[in-house]
């Protein structure tokens, strides 16, 4: 092209017409895969164990749909807890206060070390520790005893553990608290990706640390935080199946399993679970695709992309602060 412009009097050369490289391997692969797919489809159609008509009948029934709603609600609630608490723990981790740093380290260590299934079962059985959960002056009985008062109690309000730690709440806590440990790492990476100069400029203007975090650092960290948060949300959606073992009854997998157990048709119901999670995850994947496309645009210097990026940052920033409040 540069030759062209330098010497315009010379004729443009013929387009290259070469024999392209052949790829016999590709055709072989296509043939092998084609046969395998045909075998698989044949099995799906002919194997009676799939019991398709039964499965399709069952998988849209009201209890299953209620379970579906429960799963979606559980995903959203756990992610909200995870993100909010994750931001708090990340900020603690980056704080100058060694005690806060230590606490956040221990928190992350614990919740990353224990499997989620174990956590879920543990939280589901916390009722064994306390029959009632009450709020008030800590160590009130001991303080009362110190002053010679028998059975002194200073409690403001309380719940029966059975009421508070319903399966749903227990599951939500187990998943949300464990998610916070992972989100904390993501948020920390996001915060550390923001240039030090941003904080300094804000400090020089007289902003306080909290203001700098909320208005300057976190909105910029979002670009780094959002894509992995999408992954976490998808992972969370799948992990909600774990709470079926607490057990939580308003949950998709529990309901499908229950139908399977009742009708002695477990396998078709597991296939139904497969399909439902595929559908839910695909919806999230589409959402994540558009979100990431928005954010990758902002990396360049193109102006319009920056404007769009700001829109998202403002939205997500607002969402996070709403969750904070």
């Amino acid at each position, binding site marked *: 092209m540069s030759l062209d412009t330098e010497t315009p009097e010379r004729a443009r050369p013929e387009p290259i017409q070469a024999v392209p490289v052949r790829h016999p391997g590709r055709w072989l692969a296509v043939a092998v895969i084609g046969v395998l797919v045909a075998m698989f489809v044949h099995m799906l159609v002919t194997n009676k164990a799939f019991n398709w008509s039964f499965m399709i009948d069952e998988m849209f029934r009201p209890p299953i749909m209620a379970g579906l709603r429960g799963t979606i609600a559980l995903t959203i609630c756990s992610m909200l807890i995870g993100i909010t608490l994750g931001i708090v723990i990340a900020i603690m981790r980056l704080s100058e206060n060694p005690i806060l740093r230590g606490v956040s380290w221990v928190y992350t260590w614990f919740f990353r070390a224990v499997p989620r299934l174990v956590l879920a079962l543990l939280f589901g059985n916390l009722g064994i520790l306390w029959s009632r959960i009450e709020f008030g002056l800590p160590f009130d009985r001991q303080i009362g005893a110190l002053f010679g008062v028998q059975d002194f109690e200073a409690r403001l309000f309380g719940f029966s553990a059975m009421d508070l730690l319903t399966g749903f709440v227990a599951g939500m806590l187990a998943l949300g608290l464990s998610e916070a440990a992972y989100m904390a790492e993501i948020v920390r990476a996001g915060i550390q990706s923001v240039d030090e100069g941003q904080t*300094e*400029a804000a400090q*020089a203007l*007289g*902003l306080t640390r909290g*203001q700098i975090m909320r208005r300057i650092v976190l909105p*910029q960290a979002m670009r780094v935080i959002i894509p992995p948060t999408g992954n976490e949300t998808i992972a969370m959606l799948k992990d909600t199946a774990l709470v079926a073992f607490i057990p939580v009854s308003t949950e998709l997998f529990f309901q499908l399993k229950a139908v399977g157990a009742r009708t002695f048709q477990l396998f078709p119901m597991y296939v139904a679970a497969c399909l439902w999670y595929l559908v839910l995850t695909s919806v999230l994947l589409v959402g994540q695709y558009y979100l990431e496309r928005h954010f990758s645009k902002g990396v360049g*210097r193109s102006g319009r992309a920056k404007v769009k990026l700001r829109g998202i940052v403002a939205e997500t920033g607002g969402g996070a602060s709403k969750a904070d409040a």
Partner: protein
Amino acid sequence: MTGVKVLPQAGPPGAESRPMVHAEQVHKSFGSIEVLKGIDLQVRAGEVCCLLGPSGSGKSTFLRCINHLEKINAGWIRVDGELIGYRERGGKLHEMREKEVAAQRRSIGMVFQRFNLFPHMTALDNVAEAPTLVRREKKSAARERAAALLERVGLGDKLGNYPGQLSGGQQQRVAIARALAMKPKLMLFDEPTSALDPELVGEVLDVMKDLARDGMTMIVVTHEIGFAREVGDSLVFMDGGVVVEQGNPREVIADPKHDRTKAFLAKVL
């Protein structure tokens, strides 16, 4: 703290000689390395003080000490009579709380070599952010004032642009407007033109000259000898963490007394 007019005509004796910035024996170490080894400096209200020196001589560090971005290890700095970063009580120094330090910084503007604009905000929001957040101005009032300030630095038509859509010179002018929006009584400039293409240096210097003419007290770290000669009221030459020579810029530049000053000026002129 606000609204105090400098140089009152019938003030108490000595008030008119009180400097805007007064530093005494400022020492600063990073770990075991002492970067500032006893800096003394006085800058009067309305004065433009140019800080020169080779790389690593501690110019940036000293500037950052003035608004307490760095904690000093010994000595003291006063801005408009107020001790920076510490409170004297009962003959003892008490460290200031974060909020108090932030309050002190509000009256000291700072402009950085690399602009440090907030990339997720428009030029207008960059300027209006701190006044709304820190000075608790009404959003509409702050934006109006921000627009006027951007107009003043010649960017009246770039209010809605994001930093990524502005040239370096334009970004630095936004940064100056952003600092001015806090109505500072002192402006610190840390090599404000060093990151700029040569043809953009002039537009930023023009804004700074304008500011100087309006009576702003300024400390400017710069290698722009022309600016120091034209606008500076005083010139301070630092090397190795000490002030080597200071005086009238035109005299020091024309006739440096110290060998190190001579060597440095020979290189940059």
